[in-house]
């Protein structure tokens, strides 16, 4: 049922150049079971090297489980994972030296100061740039002598960002890192992340359900739903494939387009549809407007359609 939403080989043609380099993350048929609960049910994921990849999904879709599996914190029940060419379970130590991880909540040692935390973590990495650390601490205005227990939610997230970036990782994983932040802290964090990651050449995997913040940053998107991969595509391709059509005829035929969502707007219909981008060149006259969508709207339409189907 989900297969039709996966990119076919033609859709992926444009992306092949990007895949000349081995993918930063390759997940094949990943299943993870916790007792009787199956959190992941055959997830496939291909994160191209150098891309900024948005992993989207509703709450409890399996994003964090997937992230923790990629990091080697959880062992797959079945399936395989390769991260930067390494097996996270077997080569966890080597892998963690090359990646940065920013989770929603990083439980640190509350009794340490920021300076002590930085010194403690820096000592565990073979390569740690003091210059980057100092620059980030200054830019993010982190008070070095303050204890972790006294930091706000936003300051903790910014410290996690410093810890994840100062060893110059090849791959950065951000797992729902702005959940629970107030609007100001989130904006501050987003601005810092965008400054650091955009044009950095690093591979970045974002997992979030707050999609508006990812729209301007990501070039690839994957959607997981109920433990399965629903879709993977370049953001530009997806935006050219999924649009909303304002239609003044209820009986209008839209060959080659799958209707994902149907709304009314006065006497007209708003149909969110998906199809090959060339289909939008030959629309019937009953279509009075073609509206481009943001990533968030596309996500809602695709997941909503999938939930209706199932």
């Amino acid at each position, binding site marked *: 049922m989900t297969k039709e939403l996966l990119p076919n080989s033609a859709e992926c043609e444009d992306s092949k150049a990007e895949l000349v380099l081995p993918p930063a993350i390759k997940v094949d048929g990943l299943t993870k079971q916790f007792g009787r609960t199956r959190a992941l049910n055959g997830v496939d994921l291909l994160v191209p090297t150098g891309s900024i990849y948005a992993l989207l999904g509703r709450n409890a879709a399996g994003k964090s489980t997937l992230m923790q599996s990629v990091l080697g*914190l959880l062992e797959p029940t079945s399936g395989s994972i390769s991260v930067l060419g390494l097996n996270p379970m077997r080569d966890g130590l080597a892998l*963690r030296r090359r990646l940065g991880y920013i989770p929603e909540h*990083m439980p640190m040692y509350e009794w340490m100061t920021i300076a002590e935390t930085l010194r403690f973590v820096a000592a565990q990495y073979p390569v740690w740039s003091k210059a980057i650390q100092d620059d980030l601490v200054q830019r993010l205005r982190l008070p070095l002598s303050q204890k972790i227990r006294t930091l706000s939610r936003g300051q903790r997230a910014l410290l996690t960002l410093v810890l994840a970036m100062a060893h110059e990782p090849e791959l950065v994983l951000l797992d729902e890192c702005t959940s629970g932040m107030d609007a100001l802290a989130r904006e501050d964090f987003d601005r810092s992340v965008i400054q650091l990651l955009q044009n950095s050449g690093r591979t970045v995997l974002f997992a979030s359900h707050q999609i508006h913040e990812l729209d301007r940053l990501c070039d690839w998107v994957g959607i997981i739903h109920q433990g399965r991969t629903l879709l993977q595509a370049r953001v530009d391709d997806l935006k050219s494939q999924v649009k909303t059509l304002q239609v003044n005829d209820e009986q209008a035929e839209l060959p080659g387009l799958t209707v994902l969502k149907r709304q009314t707007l006065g006497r007209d219909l708003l149909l969110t549809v998906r199809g090959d981008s060339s289909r939008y060149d030959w629309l019937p006259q009953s279509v009075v407007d073609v509206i481009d969508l943001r990533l968030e709207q596309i996500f809602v339409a695709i997941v909503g359609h999938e939930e209706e189907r199932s």
Partner: protein
Amino acid sequence: MMLLFWKEWREMRLLPVLALATYIALFLAEASCDRFSTGEWQSSPEFMNPLIATWLIFWTVAGSTAFSSEIGSGSLQFMSVIPVSRRRIWWVKLSVAFFSAVAVFAVTIAFVQMLYLYWPGSSIAHAGRLNNSVWPMNLYWALLVSGSLLVCLSSGFCASPFFDQPIVSTAVAAIGGVIYFAFSTLYNIGRIYHYHGNFYYLGALIVTALLIMPPLVTSYQTFVRGESLKSIKRYKVGALTFIGTSVVSTIIYALLTKV
């Protein structure tokens, strides 16, 4: 590496202080009894009971809180995402727990010796009597006590990776320790201490090693091979390792007692 030791010590440094404070409080409670004024306590074996109880409890707690406090606070997840090997974390935790327990042991012994020497009415003769009766400071006694304490520590260490609340892991370790001691008494595991003249002291070491091997190896395997996050895998790894090492220990013991 040094920073790992520093972190570990900072995490658990309240425990030894608490153990010493508990002991002093118990001692002062005893000091309020009549026999203190007569000096009778200096030859009374039961005087040592609170001290021994404090040691046993402290060694159990030192082991049982090693992982559970960090699992509970979530800081183990923090350690799991930075490049520190789990083996190293395990060994550092064991070393710090062991040496702080030894420090408490040494400080309390020094405290008692000082009391014997300097308590009003004491004399060198009293101290000598102490060493002969209450304080049978011979190698056999030392091995027996240190063996029991190591069993407590390893029992705590075994329970610790399975629980996220230190109090629960301590309770489980204490119950496990009692069962363990009862089991070893039932099967007269200590007889290797006595019956083999050639093995008198070596036997004590072997018995201690056989008793602490299953819980320590179980703790190691569970922490190193199990997932750092809560999962059923910890229990599978733990159960299989405990059964396997217990069988091996029993076979070694059976072979040794037939020598």
